């Protein structure tokens, strides 16, 4: 069995995340592609409102692989945005990325009791488009030529990921 885990992003992790975020395979799939400097990263971390934004590092067998997040949490409207990037290029096509996504969405929908998620994805980011489709996201009409907007509700998520969660159970040996 593999041991996949999530931990809260801490100050000690932020330069690793910056290193990942500046790598071409991550940066080129983001809406903002600017290089992030050390100080900028520290400023960004200092401004995080932990009630509205949650970042996690995900790891496999003690090796840090990437970062997942829930941002723009709105407890009144019960909405959020989910995000992920795989920093370690060796794991780009690995199941652990899907596992991390499912864990974070489970947390948002079932523990924080949020109802809907929105996502904005570059139209040429095929892995993210494919992943979102599998999670149950539905395309919104207010998209433009570069980006598409998607919405996911809790029921859609629960139904769409049933098989995926069963599949992932094989690797980690427990329900997720």
């Amino acid at each position, binding site marked *: 069995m593999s041991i996949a885990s999530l931990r809260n992003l801490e100050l000690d992790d932020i330069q690793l995340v910056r290193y990942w975020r500046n790598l071409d395979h991550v940066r080129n799939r983001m809406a903002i592609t600017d290089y992030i400097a050390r100080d900028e990263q520290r400023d960004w971390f200092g401004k995080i409102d932990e009630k509205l934004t949650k970042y996690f590092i995900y790891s496999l067998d003690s090796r840090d692989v990437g970062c997942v997040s829930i941002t723009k949490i709105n407890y009144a409207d019960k909405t959020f945005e989910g995000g992920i990037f795989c920093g370690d290029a060796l794991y*780009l*096509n*690995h*199941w652990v*990325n*899907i596992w991390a996504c499912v864990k974070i969405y489970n947390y948002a929908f079932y523990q924080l009791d949020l109802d809907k998620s929105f996502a904005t994805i570059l139209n040429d980011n*095929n*892995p993210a488009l*494919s*992943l979102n489709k*599998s999670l149950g996201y539905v395309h919104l009409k207010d998209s433009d030529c570069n980006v598409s907007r998607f919405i996911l509700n809790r029921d859609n998520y629960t139904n769409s990921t049933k*098989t*995926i969660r069963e*599949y*992932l159970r*094989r*690797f980690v040996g427990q329900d997720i």
Partner: protein
Amino acid sequence: MSNVPFEIFSQEFANDLGIVDKGYLTCILKEVPEYDSMGKITISLTIERLFGFQIPFEALDKVETIHVLYEYCIKNSVRE
């Protein structure tokens, strides 16, 4: 030994991944954009449905072409 022909397997492979371009039949699987993290999970389930066994994720990661993947499935199939 399974009797699923390659044509059926490759068709199901393309359908389940939503591939329209025939390039996947000849190129290296790593170069098929749809064969990513989620794509491998999808194909793993396709293989279970067609061949009746659970393919290890490492095998999905290692196989270079769809033909090699098919041969692996035939060899390990538990369906007649």
